[in-house]
């Protein structure tokens, strides 16, 4: 029993300590609301002395104006007592001894002792928390207003953002459309030259995808180095930029707002090259600081090609004009000389009337014949050129004996040589060939008459013909005045006369005809010459197979 009693005593001591030292008011009332016990904290809260409230009704602690309502509530509670814990407890207004009021929260517990019901009320002064609550409520309300205001502001801002966003979207769409559909390559770089923008045209033209280039490379990747080196050199000298780095030099113009437009060769990913016209401008931020550079480049290969064609057409036109004036000067000279002879000889024949003048008359008639022949030759040359130009020269290969044919031609032309001029001819190899004989004759006649015309009297002309390995080679060599290196370039042009041949009659058509006829027979005309050291003409023909077969059959 002993331990149990001491246990009870210890428990009651615990309760007493709790009752006396609790930091909340504890009041115990009986069934009719009479206070049976009140702890020191509650006495202090309500401002009463130790014994002052003993036996007093609980209503003493409630302001009179709530009294009836409270009594009703208490009676109801007593009829149906139940525990009301603090959280769910009831808020009351309590009254101190001095009549001042303060808010309390009350939780109720019930217990039965010796058949009588007691109510134990825990009273918590909540004036401070009430105040705080109010404060919080006020704050909350303020906060709410602020939040609402903010929300409205935010909504407004969002709306504006939406508007400007859609405007921005429009601008971006417009910009992208511009960038993507521009026929020009648009490439932007940052301050260090690294690519930051690479439009679709650039991608298409250069063969690199934007991802390969942006943030990884400088435009040096697709610029021909020799071009940029040239530009660097030029700019360094022009603007005195010695010692600066390459990028600074290349962007000097753009940075200083000097119009920067240049032709560049671009190198595609596959290594092929095309020509562009590149314009570079600096990109500046709001403060005017350069943040990068933009280059716009257009492919001008086509333009260049057209320019080339135009230039060629112009050259042709100029050439044609030159040809015309050459023809006029040739015609005025070459036609007038024989015509003057014809005229003066006819006049003289008219004057020689006596019988003893017969010899003189015959001499002048001879002069008229040769002058007319000369005119015919010139006209024939012109006719030949006309036919060549129209492509109306027929090529009719026949089989003939080459050596016999050349000897015959030499005999024919011998009467036209200058005095004491000789022709030495030698043939080697097969004799029967398949060629157009009349064209070959024209070629040979022209070459021999040229050799004679441009060589002094008492000189030799050497002719060689060789047939070997299906190739026929014909050479005509003289020891004449020769052709200067400058004139050699124009030798095959129509109406061209060498500078040293001004005083020698001729149309300037002979070699043109020779080279064209050789061409028609799939041959080539070559020559070697030195001024005052003579000239060597070589014509080479590839012979057709069947000519050899015939030859061997013979």
């Amino acid at each position: 029993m002993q331990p149990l009693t001491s246990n009870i005593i210890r428990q009651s001591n615990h309760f007493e300590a709790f009752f006396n030292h609790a930091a909340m008011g504890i009041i115990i009332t009986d069934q009719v609301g009479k206070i049976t016990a009140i702890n020191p904290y509650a006495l202090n809260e309500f401002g009463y002395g130790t014994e002052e409230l003993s036996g007093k009704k609980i209503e003493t602690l409630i302001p009179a104006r709530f009294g009836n309502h409270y009594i009703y509530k208490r009676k109801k509670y007593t009829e149906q007592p139940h525990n009301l814990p603090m959280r769910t407890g009831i808020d009351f207004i309590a009254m101190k001894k001095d009549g001042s009021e303060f808010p309390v929260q009350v939780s109720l517990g019930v217990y039965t002792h010796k058949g009588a019901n007691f109510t134990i009320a825990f009273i918590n002064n909540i004036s401070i928390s009430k105040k705080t609550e109010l404060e919080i409520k006020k704050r909350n309300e303020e906060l709410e207003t602020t939040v609402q205001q903010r929300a409205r502001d935010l909504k407004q801002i969002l709306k504006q953002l939406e508007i400007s966003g859609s405007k921005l979207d429009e601008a971006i769409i417009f910009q992208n459309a511009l960038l993507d559909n521009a026929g020009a390559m648009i490439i932007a770089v940052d301050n260090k030259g690294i690519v930051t923008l690479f439009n679709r045209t650039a991608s298409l033209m250069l063969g690199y995808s934007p991802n390969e280039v942006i943030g990884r490379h400088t435009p040096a990747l697709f610029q021909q180095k020799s071009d940029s080196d040239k530009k660097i050199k030029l700019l360094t000298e022009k603007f005195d930029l010695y010692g600066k780095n390459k990028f600074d030099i290349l962007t000097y113009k753009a940075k200083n707002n000097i119009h920067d437009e240049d032709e560049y060769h671009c190198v595609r990913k596959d290594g092929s090259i095309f020509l562009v016209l590149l314009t570079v401008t600096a990109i500046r931020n709001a403060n005017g600081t350069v943040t990068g550079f933009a280059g716009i480049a257009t492919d001008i290969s086509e333009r260049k090609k057209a320019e080339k064609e135009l230039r060629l057409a112009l050259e042709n036109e100029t050439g044609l004009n030159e040809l015309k004036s050459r023809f006029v000067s040739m015609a005025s000279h070459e036609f007038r000389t024989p015509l003057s002879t014809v005229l003066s000889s006819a006049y003289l024949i008219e004057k020689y009337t006596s019988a003893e003048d017969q010899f003189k008359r015959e001499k002048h008639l001879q002069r008229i014949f040769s002058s007319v022949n000369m005119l015919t030759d010139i006209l024939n040359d012109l006719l030949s050129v006309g036919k060549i130009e129209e492509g109306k020269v027929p090529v009719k290969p026949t089989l003939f004996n080459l050596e016999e044919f050349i000897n015959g031609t030499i005999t024919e032309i011998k009467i036209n040589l200058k005095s004491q001029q000789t022709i030495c001819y030698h043939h080697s190899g097969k004799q029967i060939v398949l060629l157009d004989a009349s064209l070959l004759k024209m070629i040979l006649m022209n070459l021999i008459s040229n050799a004679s015309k441009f060589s002094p009297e008492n000189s030799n002309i050497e002719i060689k013909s060789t047939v070997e390995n299906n190739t026929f080679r014909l050479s005509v060599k003289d020891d004449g005045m020769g052709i200067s290196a400058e004139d050699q370039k124009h030798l095959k042009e129509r109406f061209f006369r060498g500078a040293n041949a001004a005083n020698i009659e001729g149309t300037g058509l002979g070699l043109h005809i020779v080279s064209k006829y050789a061409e028609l027979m799939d041959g080539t005309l070559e020559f070697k010459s030195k001024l005052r050291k003579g000239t060597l003409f070589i014509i080479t023909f590839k012979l057709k197979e069947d000519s050899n077969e015939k030859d061997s059959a013979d």
Partner: protein
Amino acid sequence: MKKILLIEYNEDIGNNTAEIQELSNYTVIMAKNGKNGVQKALKFLPN
């Protein structure tokens, strides 16, 4: 008889022109080019 110096490169034209002058009783001296002409002028002193 008056002397004429005729300088003409083309033989036929030179001969014919000389003959025509001779029909009018001139003595004609012929030269083929300028250099030759000067030499002959100094030598024959044409009128």
